[in-house]
């Protein structure tokens, strides 16, 4: 299955360059977003400078929910399906979940920062924050299962099931929380404040923000994947040692095995 040679590089030289390119592109796009967002675009009528958070909060939220979760769920399905099963999908799933946790936490933080001056509280149970908080708990559940010591196959199985159960839950959560809020009078006012009208240079900056964070996600995913491969190689070499010790049980002076030859 996986190579036991510790000197094997996780991927080819060409892939290394692609990943580096991704990192550079992400850095550039982020820099561009920050520059445009902080200096070039105008402040909003109502929210003044606070509106600049719109260039990062929705993109981060989008990455967390659709990209990270989508990749995790899709990889889990591909792992579970016998015909496409391969350790690649398991590694990809755990990488997506870990990076997703970072992005989800950032979504909550930026959402909270945005809400504080507007609503006066650090947290409000609006639709997006509530769903995102639940998403974070689901992702943390995945990592909790991942930490349980088990052989790689069992661990991958359990993780994949958790990812699928959670993935199926996410749209249901969204639906129900949204309904909850459209029925609640107060929420519509809160939501309106967080969705400013976007035009002109703001639209371009927002688009750049989406691109920037998508690139950042892809780069972090690749790096995390590499960490996973290296960690597996480490475990494999530990296994080699354990196997040798096990074989050593069979050689050398033996006491009477099981008393059968007494």
């Amino acid at each position, binding site marked *: 299955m996986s190579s036991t040679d510790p000197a094997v590089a996780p991927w080819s030289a060409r892939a290394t360059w692609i990943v580096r390119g991704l990192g550079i592109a992400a850095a550039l796009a982020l820099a561009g977003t920050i520059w445009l967002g902080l200096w070039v675009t105008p402040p909003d009528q109502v929210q003044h400078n606070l509106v600049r958070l719109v260039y990062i909060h929705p993109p981060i939220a989008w990455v967390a929910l659709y990209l990270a979760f989508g990749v995790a769920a899709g990889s889990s399905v591909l792992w579970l399906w016998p015909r496409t099963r391969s350790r690649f999908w398991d590694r990809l799933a755990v990488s997506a979940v870990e990076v997703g946790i970072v992005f989800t936490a950032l979504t909550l933080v930026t959402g909270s920062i945005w809400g504080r001056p507007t609503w006066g509280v650090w947290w409000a149970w609006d639709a997006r924050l509530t769903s995102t908080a639940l998403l974070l708990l689901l992702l943390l559940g995945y990592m909790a299962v991942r930490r349980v010591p088990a052989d790689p*196959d069992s661990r991958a199985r359990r993780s994949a099931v958790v990812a699928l159960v959670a993935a199926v839950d996410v749209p249901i959560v969204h639906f129900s929380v949204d309904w909850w809020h459209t029925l609640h009078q107060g929420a519509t006012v809160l939501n309106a404040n967080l969705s400013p009208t976007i035009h002109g240079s703001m639209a371009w900056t927002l688009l750049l923000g989406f691109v920037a964070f998508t690139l950042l996600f892809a780069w972090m995913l690749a790096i995390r994947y590499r960490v996973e491969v290296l960690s597996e190689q480490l475990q494999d070499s530990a296994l080699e040692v354990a196997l040798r010790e096990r074989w050593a049980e069979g050689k050398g002076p033996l006491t009477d095995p099981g008393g059968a030859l007494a």
Partner: protein
Amino acid sequence: MAPAVHLSTAVCVTGRFPALAGVDLAVAQGEVVVLEGPNGAGKTSVLRVCAGLLPLTGGEGTVLGCDLRHDAPALRRRVGMLGHAAALYDDLTVVENVRFAVRAAGGSLSNVDAVLDRLELGGRVRRTPVGRLSAGQRRRVALAVLVARRPELWLLDEPHAGLDADARVVLGEIVAEVVAQGATVLLASHEPEESWPLADRVVSLVGGRVVEVRHVGATARRPVPPPDTLRAVSGSVHVA
């Protein structure tokens, strides 16, 4: 004839520990093979691998024609295992436990009563919840479950442990009958080979590998597999 069990360089890693470190084993249909070895040698692991319970980390295995990597669930109805711990429901009576197991395996209930009587589990004991039985009786119930299911491959882990002398005799008779009907028996034991008059071969395991295979003079009418299907692992043959 295709072997009932064929393991080739089977490696099995549970957690961080390699329970099996390269096992080669071939058991022909109708054979009785005894696995012996010190504690921790991997005897139970071999049985569990053959039951499809323990996945192979490396190497290959085929049991009753099913590839262990892909078809393990298909094996379950055809294989019966008597393990260390009896998988019985304490709150159900003896007969309920046996009936459940038989129906779960898709068998017929017609011989349940006969089996229970043979193992001295008839009469009032039948209707006693398993949790209230003694350890020896529980072991008999586990054995009854196995016998009533009539599997093609029998995997017995220390079957003599926990059984009194009478039950051991009955077990010996039962094994003789099912082998005559074509079942294959693989058992792990600490007992000396005299306890297993029906054994065809004794396979010694140490450190997760086969170190020796001995023919122990089974009755001539049962075919002995040709030597090239048996392979002791090179380099570490233990001389008795």
